């Protein structure tokens, strides 16, 4: 086992769907953030609107936190099942730790077996709540404020968050604040504070989810049109954009299916606005044909692909990195497809903005691939309103003589005219065409033109590779062992590396956010290491296969496919074992 830091709190609220678990978790996360603590959340839920079990975890610390963390300090449970599950030392929640701290719950729950590491804090939650309202969810607020009291959070900070959550002014907000105050005072009067002390601060932090960050980053990147069909976990981005459409001057449309969504986005980009579409694997499968069309007509297109556990409908509310093969293989023929995989919430914003530039400059499909974990958990970030310069790519001047839409160039990029431009009328065709856009596949197939155009389009790949930033690494300089990760596993991999470094194991990480085309500098990075280990949240190691076939290296593979993300201690143990293998 690895020892986790003292200077942090892992909080968890558990209950059934419909109990208000998520909103309770979010109130706590916001309260931590406003107390100047960095926070990362974790959302565990099922494909059900009422019943079942769900929980929401928040890890908070005055130092930056990079994942949901191990250990569990404070449990608020809204039902008996939650108390039993999360205090059980043989907990079965996808790698999450069982409680060794305090449990806050309603005093009516009495039927449980006492666990050694748990301090039980029964409270008259329903009784207190009942004084203010008949709404059973009010007891959640009472429990949250008790949790806040246990670690010395300023009541006013929590009251502020509660007020906002319940509509600021009005009876409901007042009832919640009053009930919270009574819960806060009750805990302080009846129980000692929790053993850990946190250093609160005045630091300004934003709390934002990964899917929202993708939407926000798109707006920063000049997005004007988002067309989609809802599918978990891509919907958090859709909801953010739809609810901010008027503020950010954005056209948002949910259409009849994913096929129409992607074709609409292509139409929008063709006509000169920045348009994007998004879905999860199942919906993206329907978009496949249009991906190749965008590449053939050389129309910019950003596709947000949010992975969940497959195959098929799979585990609709669970995470996985299982769509890489699907995205890599989407659409017939050879063409440049660029795949980004943001590694954290902030990068979900910055890389999406960058994707919009890259798509327009290279006139080809660019993917922003996340997984459910990234799309549906929140992180605190410092400077959310990042600097960004929009680059709309090469455009021809109106009226230019003898305009060739698909001009053969060294870079492979041809200046792109849009409808409405004077004198640049032309045809864009999904059939193979020549420089003018005229079809070369129908009456007479011209093999020379075909070769020229194929090579022109593919030349964009080298042009893109030439400008790729260096691959980022973590504690890799002296590392004998290198762990490859891509996308959302960055935070947990870094922490696992830190844990192993404490044991004097020379291990570092390669952190991939630009998945394809692969950066040739990886070849140099992996040279003369004792072992290459690849960590992936899927069954077969889809990135691992890419890496091995491109760089002809031997690897050890660590996978996880139970629907949950990696947890740091568990991952450190797996890496240690892989090193020993």
């Amino acid at each position, binding site marked *: 086992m690895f020892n986790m830091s003292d200077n942090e709190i892992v909080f968890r609220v558990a209950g059934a769907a419909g109990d208000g678990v998520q909103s309770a978790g979010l109130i706590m996360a916001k309260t931590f953030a406003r107390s100047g603590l960095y926070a990362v959340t974790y959302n565990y839920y099922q494909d059900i609107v009422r019943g079942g079990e769900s929980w929401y975890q928040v890890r908070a610390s005055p130092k930056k936190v990079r994942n949901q963390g191990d250990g569990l300090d404070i449990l608020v449970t809204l039902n008996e099942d939650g108390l039993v599950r999360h205090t059980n030392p043989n907990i079965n929640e996808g790698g999450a730790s069982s409680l060794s701290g305090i449990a806050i719950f309603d005093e009516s729950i009495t039927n449980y077996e006492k666990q050694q590491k748990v301090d039980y804090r029964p409270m008259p939650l329903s009784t207190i709540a009942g004084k203010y309202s008949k709404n059973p969810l009010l007891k959640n607020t009472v429990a949250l404020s008790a949790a806040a009291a246990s670690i010395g959070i300023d009541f006013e900070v929590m009251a502020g968050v509660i007020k906002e959550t319940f509509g600021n002014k009005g009876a409901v907000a007042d009832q919640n604040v009053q009930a919270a105050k009574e819960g806060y005072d009750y805990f302080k009067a009846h129980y000692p504070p929790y053993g850990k002390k946190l250093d609160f601060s005045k630091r300004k932090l934003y709390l934002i989810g990964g899917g929202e960050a993708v939407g926000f980053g798109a707006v920063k990147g000049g997005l004007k049109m988002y067309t989609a069909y809802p599918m978990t976990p891509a919907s958090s981005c859709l909801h953010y954009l739809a609810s901010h459409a008027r503020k950010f001057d954005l*056209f948002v449309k949910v259409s009849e299916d994913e*096929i*129409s969504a992607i074709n609409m986005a292509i139409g929008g980009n*063709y*006509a000169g606005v920045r348009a994007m579409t998004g879905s999860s694997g199942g919906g993206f499968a329907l978009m496949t044909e249009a991906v190749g*069309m965008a590449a053939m007509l050389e129309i910019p297109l950003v596709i947000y692909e949010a992975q969940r556990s497959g195959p098929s409908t799979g585990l609709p509310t669970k995470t996985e990195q299982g769509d890489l093969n699907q995205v890599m293989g989407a659409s017939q023929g050879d063409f440049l497809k660029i795949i980004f995989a943001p590694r954290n919430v902030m990068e979900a914003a910055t890389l999406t903005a960058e994707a919009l530039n890259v798509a327009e400059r290279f006139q080809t499909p660019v993917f922003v691939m996340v997984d459910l974990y990234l799309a549906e958990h929140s992180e605190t970030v410092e400077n959310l309103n990042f600097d960004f310069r929009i680059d709309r790519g090469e455009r021809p001047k109106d009226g230019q003589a003898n305009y060739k839409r698909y001009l053969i160039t060294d870079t492979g990029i041809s200046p792109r005219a849009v409808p*409405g431009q004077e004198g*640049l009328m032309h045809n864009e065709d999904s059939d193979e065409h020549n420089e003018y856009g005229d079809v070369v596949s129908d*009456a007479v197939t011209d093999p020379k033109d075909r070769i020229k155009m194929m090579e022109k389009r593919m030349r964009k790949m080298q042009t893109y590779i030439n400008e790729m930033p260096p691959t980022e690494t973590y504690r890799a300089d002296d590392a004998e062992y290198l762990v490859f990760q891509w996308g959302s596993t960055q935070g947990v991999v870094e922490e696992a590396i830190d844990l192993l470094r404490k044991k004097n194991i020379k291990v570092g990480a390669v952190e991939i956010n630009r998945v394809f085309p692969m950066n040739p500098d990886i070849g140099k990075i992996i040279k003369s290491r004792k072992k290459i280990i690849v960590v992936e949240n899927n069954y077969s190691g889809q990135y691992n296969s890419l890496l091995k076939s491109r760089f002809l290296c031997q690897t050890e593979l660590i996978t996880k496919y139970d629907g949950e993300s990696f947890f740091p201690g568990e991952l450190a143990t797996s890496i240690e074992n892989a090193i020993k293998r």
Partner: protein
Amino acid sequence: MITVNDFNGKVKPDWCPACGNFSQLTAIKGALTELQIEPKNTVIVSGIGCSSNLPEFIRAYGFHGLHGRVLPVASGVKWANSDLTVIGYGGDGDGFFEGTQHFFHTAKRNVDITYIVSDNQIFGLTTGQASPTSEIGFVSKSTPDGNIEKPVNPLTFGLAAGATFVARAFSGDPKHLTEIIKRGIQHKGFSFIDVMSPCVTFNKLNTYDYFRKRVYKYEAKDLKDFSAAYRISEEWGDKIPIGIFYEIESKRYEEMDPVEVEGPLVTHPIYSVKDEDLEELV
């Protein structure tokens, strides 16, 4: 002054001689000229099929996309730049098989697009299989013993979906065809024109002769009368009506969307995010 020549493409159509698509090409060019719409402001979006090759043969902005996906692309174009005249063009296979859901929903949304279907009651490009509008008993490569599936009626379907302009035309009557296309383009909202267009190579049943014997010009007493439009749309057999069956004024999608009403999206400035916009996340 815009003349027909302004719309002449440099690529010669590669359709079989006498194919019904020729007169539609001429009619589209004629209608655009009569309406003095500039080539630079015209976008023709097509799918895949013989008919869908049309954008190549006209001097305008052409988009030759995927089989069945005419209307979503056309919608995206219109929503990006509502100043453009957007014409969707494709075959009966394209529109009534592969693209059925888009036809239904685009009609219902009343996006300001003119959708012209070259309805030859067969798959032309793939060398003669039965299409969704092929008649019962129709012998083709895919139905050697005769088609047993009832044909769809694109007009009643369009009406049921909520199209605000529904018409039928015939490739063998180019003047009338031009007039209808003109009216379709003028219509503010989704206009649907089903053009009976003989495939002289593969459809030996629904020929020019077949239609010449049957078609007659229908003049609606009241274009807003939905029941009358529905009844006339159902007429098919010894007599086949052509003309505008239905036209109503109704709010276009672009008029209702709060962002679209601010003018063509391409002219909107890029939104510059202010720190205050993010206070909700603190």
